[in-house]
C-alpha cells in the first residue's frame, strides 16, 4: 500500500510529517521549558550519547526525565543485562540501568554527591545509609510518617514488601499535595514495564504511597525557590501572611502584631525551609524568639536586649542552616560576635567597630557557607571589603565608593555563590548594575530608576539563582512586579498595595 501511493504522495506526506514533527517539537519545547527549572548537564561519561550507548549498546531513553536527567533502559532481566559504570575514575561503581544508578546519577549531577556504597547493596537502604556515607552531608533523611511532604529533587527509597526484597529508589519530580492529599510524580528505572520512567504516587493524609519509606530532602530548598512573599503588617486584621511565589492567595500565619522592623526570616528548625520567623524586639520580657514555620508558638532563644538593628542571620558554624545570629554592635570591646543557632554563648569573630548598617553577609570565598562579612563603607580608600568567615583580615574588592543603602548581595552570574553586588542607585543614566564577585566592572541591568528601598532580590523564575529583582512600590498602578535576572521586562505579581516596608522574601 505504501509503495503504491508512495511516488505521488510521498512529498506531501513528507511535508505534512515534517510540519507535524516541527509543531510537536515546538509544543514540547514550550511545555518542557515551562516545567523545568535548571537543566543539569548530561553525564560526561556518556560520551555525548543518549543513555551511554558506548558503554551499553542498545540502551535507550525510556521517555521520562527531570531537569535534564534521563531515565534509561532496558532494565536488567527485562531484555537487558546490567553494565558496570563508574561516573569518574575511582568512583563507586553502579549498574546501568538499575534504579540505584538513576538516584546516584541524579545526586551526583544535581548535588555533587559522589556515589556511595550501600552496605546491604539494596535500594531500600539508599536513604538510611546516606548519613553513614556522608556524616556531614547536607541532604536530610526524612521519614514518610505523614508529618513531612517531599519537594521536587528529593530522592526516595521504597519497599513494597514480598517480592521486593531489594526495594526501589528514584527521584521525586513533582508534588501536588493540598491539605495532605494529592499526588507526587517520580522518575525511576527498572520498574515494571512498560514504563516511560515516570509514575504517579498517591498521597493520603500526608503519607506517600508506593511503598515509599523515606527520602533525602535538600534543605536548601523548600520548593527550591526563595520567592514567597511574607507580609508582616502588624495589624490585627492582617497579622502575618504569606503569598506563595508572590502570586497565590494570602495564607495566614501565626497571629501577631509585631511588625517587620523586629523580624527576620531564617531556618532554625532544620526543615530546609527559610520560613521561621525570628523576632528580636530587644525587650527583656520577650528577648529573641522563633516561631517555626511562622505558625508555631514562640520558642525562646538566647536572652539578649540587642535589637534587630545590629543583627544579621547567617550560617557561621557550617551546619547548613541559616540560624546563627551575627551581632555587629560596633561597640568597642564587643565588636562582632556570633551566637550559633541563636542559643549558644557569644563567640567573638572580629574586633572591628564597623556598624551593621555598612555590612552584609554572603559567601565570597566559595566555601558554601553564608558567613563572609561584606563591608561597603563608601569611604574613599576603603571601598568594598570582605572578611572571610567574619574573622579574617579585610580583602579589598571593588574600589567603588558606593555605600550600603544602595547595595545588595546576590548571585547574578550563576556561579552558585552569593557574592555579586547589586547596585540600584535610582539615578537616571545609571539604573541597576551588577559587579560579579564584587570585584568586576559594573554591568548594566535594567534601566529602571527605582531605588533600593522598594526592591528585594529573590528567585522568581525558578532558574535556581537569586537574581530576580522584586519591586513592591505599593503604588496601585505598579503593584508588585518582578524583573527576571534583573534585566527582563516587568512581570506583574499578585495585586497588592503593600509596600516593601512590610515585606520579606523567603521560602515557605
Amino acid at each position, binding site marked *: 500500500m505504501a509503495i503504491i501511493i508512495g511516488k505521488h504522495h510521498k512529498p506531501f506526506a513528507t511535508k505534512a510529517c515534517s510540519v507535524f514533527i516541527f509543531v510537536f517539537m515546538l509544543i514540547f519545547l514550550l511545555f518542557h521549558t515551562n516545567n523545568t527549572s535548571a537543566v543539569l548537564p548530561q553525564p560526561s561519561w556518556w560520551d555525548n550519547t543518549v543513555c551511554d550507548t558506548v558503554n551499553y549498546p542498545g540502551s535507550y531513553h525510556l521517555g521520562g526525565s527531570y531537569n535534564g536527567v534521563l531515565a534509561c533502559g532496558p532494565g536488567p532481566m527485562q531484555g537487558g543485562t546490567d553494565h558496570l559504570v563508574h561516573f569518574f575514575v575511582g568512583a563507586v561503581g*553502579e549498574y546501568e540501568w538499575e534504579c540505584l544508578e538513576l538516584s546516584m546519577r541524579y545526586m551526583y549531577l544535581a548535588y555533587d554527591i559522589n556515589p556511595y556504597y550501600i552496605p546491604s547493596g539494596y535500594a531500600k537502604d539508599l536513604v538510611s545509609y546516606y548519613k553513614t556515607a556522608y556524616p556531614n552531608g547536607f541532604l536530610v533523611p526524612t521519614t514518610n510518617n505523614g508529618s513531612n511532604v517531599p519537594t521536587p529533587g528529593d530522592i526516595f527509597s521504597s519497599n*513494597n514488601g514480598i517480592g521486593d526484597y531489594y526495594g526501589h529508589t528514584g527521584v521525586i519530580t513533582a508534588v501536588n499535595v493540598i491539605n495532605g492529599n494529592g499526588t507526587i510524580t517520580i522518575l525511576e528505572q527498572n520498574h515494571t514495564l512498560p514504563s516511560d520512567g515516570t509514575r504517579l504516587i498517591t498521597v493520603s493524609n500526608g503519607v506517600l504511597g508506593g*511503598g515509599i519509606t523515606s527520602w533525602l530532602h535538600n534543605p536548601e530548598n523548600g520548593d527550591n525557590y526563595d520567592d514567597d512573599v511574607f507580609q508582616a503588617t502588624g495589624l490585627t486584621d492582617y497579622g502575618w501572611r504569606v503569598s506563595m511565589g508572590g502570586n497565590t492567595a494570602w495564607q495566614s500565619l501565626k497571629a501577631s502584631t509585631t511588625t517587620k522592623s523586629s523580624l527576620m526570616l531564617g531556618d532554625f528548625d532544620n526543615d530546609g525551609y527559610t520560613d521561621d520567623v525570628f523576632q528580636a524586639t530587644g525587650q527583656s520580657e520577650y528577648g529573641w524568639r522563633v516561631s517555626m514555620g511562622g505558625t508555631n508558638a514562640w520558642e525562646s532563644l538566647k536572652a539578649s536586649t540587642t535589637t534587630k538593628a545590629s543583627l544579621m542571620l547567617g550560617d557561621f558554624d557550617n551546619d547548613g542552616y541559616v540560624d546563627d545570629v551575627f551581632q555587629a554592635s560596633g561597640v568597642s570591646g564587643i565588636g562582632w560576635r556570633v551566637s550559633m543557632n541563636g542559643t549558644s554563648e557569644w563567640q567573638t569573630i572580629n574586633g572591628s567597630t564597623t556598624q551593621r548598617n555598612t555590612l552584609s553577609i554572603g559567601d565570597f570565598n566559595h566555601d558554601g557557607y553564608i558567613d563572609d562579612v561584606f563591608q561597603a563603607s563608601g569611604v574613599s580608600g576603603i571601598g568594598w571589603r570582605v572578611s572571610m568567615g567574619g574573622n579574617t583580615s579585610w580583602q579589598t574588592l571593588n574600589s567603588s565608593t558606593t555605600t550600603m543603602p544602595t547595595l545588595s548581595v546576590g548571585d547574578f552570574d550563576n556561579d552558585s555563590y552569593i557574592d555579586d553586588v547589586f547596585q540600584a542607585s535610582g539615578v537616571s543614566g545609571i539604573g541597576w548594575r551588577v559587579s560579579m564577585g564584587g570585584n568586576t566592572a559594573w554591568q548594566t541591568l535594567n534601566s529602571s530608576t527605582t531605588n533600593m528601598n522598594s526592591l528585594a532580590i529573590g528567585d522568581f523564575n525558578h532558574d535556581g539563582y537569586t537574581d530576580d529583582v522584586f519591586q513592591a512600590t505599593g503604588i496601585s498602578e505598579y503593584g508588585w512586579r518582578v524583573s527576571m535576572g534583573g534585566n527582563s521586562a516587568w512581570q506583574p505579581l499578585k495585586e497588592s498595595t503593600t509596600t516593601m516596608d512590610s515585606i520579606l522574601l523567603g521560602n515557605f
Partner: protein
Amino acid sequence: MNIKSKVKSIRIPWLLIAILSMFIFVSLIMVKGGVAVTDTARITIDSLGITMDVPVKLADITYKIDSTTYPDSPSILFSTKSLEAMDNNGQCSSSHAPIGVITLTRHEPVKLESAPSVDNWHLIGHYYAIYQSPQQPCNNSKEAASLQMSQAILLHSSLINIKEKTE
C-alpha cells in the same frame, strides 16, 4: 504462474518443518529444564523443600535463607564461592545476595504491590518463585562486576528449574 505455484507448494512443507523443529526444540528445553542435563548441578534446600538445577558454572553457589523479613514468604539470598573470593569489603557474601534473591510465596505475583515482570517469576506447585537481580556491584573491580552479573544471569535462567523436592 507455474513457477509461483511450485514455489508456494515448496514453501508450505518448509514452514511446517520449521514449526515442528521449533516445537521439538522448545519441548526439549522444557523437559530438560532449560539447560542440558550434563551441564547442571542440583541444589537441594531441605528446609524449604525445594531443589534447583543450576548451570555447573554456579556449582559453587552459596545461599542464606531469610525467613524473618517475611515469615510466610522466605527469601533465598545467593552468592558463589568464586565471587566471595574476590570480596574486599564483605558485600559479596550470600547475606547481601550479590547474584540475586529468590522469594518463595503463595501470593500471586501480579497482585503484589510491586508486581515483577513475567520473566522474573515461576510457579512451583502451590508456590511462586520470584527472582530479583542485584542492584549495586559488590566489588568495585570490573572483573568482580563481570563475574557478578554473569552469575546473576545464570541464576535468573535457573528460576524455571526450581522444583518441589520429592522423596
